[in-house]
């Protein structure tokens, strides 16, 4: 459990991202906060467009120029957002690195895989070619790829191997925090399971804190200890996996869980009626209220605040009391 008394390795405080779109603003992320210690694994789930990837991109400083970031991202207590791009740069890949969505696209097709894994090493460590090559072999070995494969081109790798290589690349500079943005999309289930296992092992072995982004709650549950559910740019619930799955407190979480198909269950999959709100106008009240089965009058007027409930945080006026299964 993450009830350690030491200061967290990474702390995101009240992160907000607004995009300037001709004539208005799009509030992509609002008031996202979480903390990670070494070896902590946090999953972030939510439907498309809920701001999961935007959070990750903000942490890497990769948002387009029309994005405005507010809040703090503290790495060992130092706000890396404060000094703009120049204060972010030394941390990139050395402290916080990332596995991109779609490993095929994360490699330049005209350069060898080893060459590209070596890039951050040579860039940040000023390592010689030979040292970098040794490190590449070590990294590939760690993710289960024969070192001789380093001289191959990305198209000569299978989808799973490419994803492993992308992971090796992310670990090249020994980061403290690893962000994985849907690392298992477009992979078949067996390879997907291998990659999930590998992510767990790497985080345990190297003491890396992991943020795992996915829309696949079961996949997230296999890897992380805690899960945060995002809806319309906000974190609506964050709790340990077991507790979130067995006793969801936010109605959206409960609806998400109900929407997971279960092979042997007789019940049909329940979808959530309606659509997520538009993010280019300020949301009044709870963003989920129009689709919420248990919405009360207060939900449409005031936005719920984050309520800490033991080891969970939930943002709902009528959250189901802890421990009571819905």
């Amino acid at each position, binding site marked *: 459990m993450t009830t350690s008394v030491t200061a967290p390795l990474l702390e995101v405080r009240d992160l907000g991202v607004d995009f300037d779109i001709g004539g208005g603003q799009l509030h992509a992320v609002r008031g996202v906060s979480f903390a990670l210690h070494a070896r902590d694994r946090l999953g972030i789930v939510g439907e498309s467009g809920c701001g999961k990837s935007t959070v990750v991109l903000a942490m890497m400083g*990769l948002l387009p120029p029309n994005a405005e970031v507010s809040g703090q991202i503290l790495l060992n207590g130092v706000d890396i957002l404060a000094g703009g791009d120049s204060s972010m740069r030394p941390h990139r890949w050395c402290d916080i*690195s990332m596995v*991109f969505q779609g490993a095929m*696209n994360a490699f*330049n097709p*005209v350069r060898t895989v080893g060459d590209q894994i070596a*890039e951050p090493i040579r*860039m940040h460590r000023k390592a010689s070619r030979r040292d970098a090559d040794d490190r590449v072999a070590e990294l590939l070995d760690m993710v289960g*790829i024969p070192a001789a494969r380093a001289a191959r081109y990305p198209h000569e790798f299978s989808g799973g191997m490419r994803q492993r290589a992308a992971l090796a690349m992310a670990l090249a500079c020994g980061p403290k925090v690893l962000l994985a943005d849907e690392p298992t999309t477009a992979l078949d289930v067996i390879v997907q399971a291998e990659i999930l296992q590998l992510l767990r092992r790497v985080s345990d072995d190297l003491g890396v804190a992991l943020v795992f982004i996915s829309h696949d709650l079961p996949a997230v549950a296999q890897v992380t200890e805690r899960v945060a559910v995002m809806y319309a740019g906000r974190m609506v619930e964050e709790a340990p996996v077991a507790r979130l799955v067995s006793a969801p407190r936010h109605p959206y979480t409960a609806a998400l869980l109900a929407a997971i198909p279960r092979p042997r269950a007789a019940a049909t999959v329940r979808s959530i009626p309606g659509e997520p709100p538009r993010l280019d106008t300020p949301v009044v009240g709870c963003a989920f209220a129009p689709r919420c089965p248990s919405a009360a009058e207060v939900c449409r007027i005031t936005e719920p605040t984050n309520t800490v409930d033991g080891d969970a945080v939930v943002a709902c006026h009528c959250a189901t009391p802890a421990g009571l299964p819905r």
Partner: protein
Amino acid sequence: MVASPSGERAVSAPTRRGTARRLVTGNRQTVAGLCALGVFAVVALLAPVIAPTPVNTGFSNGFAAPTAAHPLGLDGGGFDVLSRLVHGAQTSLLVGLIAALVGMVIGGTVGFAAGYFGGRTDGVLMRITDYFLVIPDIPLMIVAAAVFGQSLTNIMIVIGLVYWASTARLIRAQVMSVRQRTFVTRVEAMGASPLFVLTRHVVPQVTPLLVANTVLMVANAIFAETYISFLGLGDPSVMSWGRMIQDALDQGAVVAGAWWVVLPPGLAVTLVVLAATIAGQGMEDTLNPRLKVGHLAVRRFRVRPLHGALGRP
């Protein structure tokens, strides 16, 4: 060995060396064009050896028909046509190559900068490019020749300055598309400088296109040099195909029925321009897989058999 159920996919995605080789040998059209250009290059290099007489050796009988001593006859001034033709090849090829390189360097630099940095840089560079695109090229060349003097160097620079704009547009578009790819974002996430991203990741992807475009530009440049010389604005101290045609016109070769004076330089220009165009277009075909699809190809019309209900194989 990691056993992966999806296995190795035999997709022939381009490798760097592979692309370079494919660019030159991947298309029969390219090979034919480059071979023809090679023949002209050899002739130009060996001009002093091949030419039956030195270029400025005059003979008395103007418009003498071809004989064994003068395989292409004599022109109105009594000069050996074959000698002038092979020496003219030197000028034409040199101007074509250098002017195309000038255009490639300027157009490439502008295109890479505009495409990569975007925003205001792109805006400023593209407005300048637009300006060069709308300047009518022949009047510009005439003015430049008149103002800066009729030297070969000036002609090469002027032709390069006229033709860089379209290259810049092309390269910019390609760079913008590469820039959007995830691997560029990934390298930026590593904290790489723009120069690193450009030289290591963007340039290798776009260079084959730049090369193909430059070969096409050689054809334009040779043609431009020919008409500049024909208009009498070429370097008077060197022989060129355009000047041969101009001399023939001045001396009334057509009226005199001396076809051997007019035809060789005209044919030579046509063949060189054709060879460069064929080579360049062949390279374009190799690089652009869309051109291989029948209904998308601009030049090669081929109806491919449809597979399956939606025409997908």
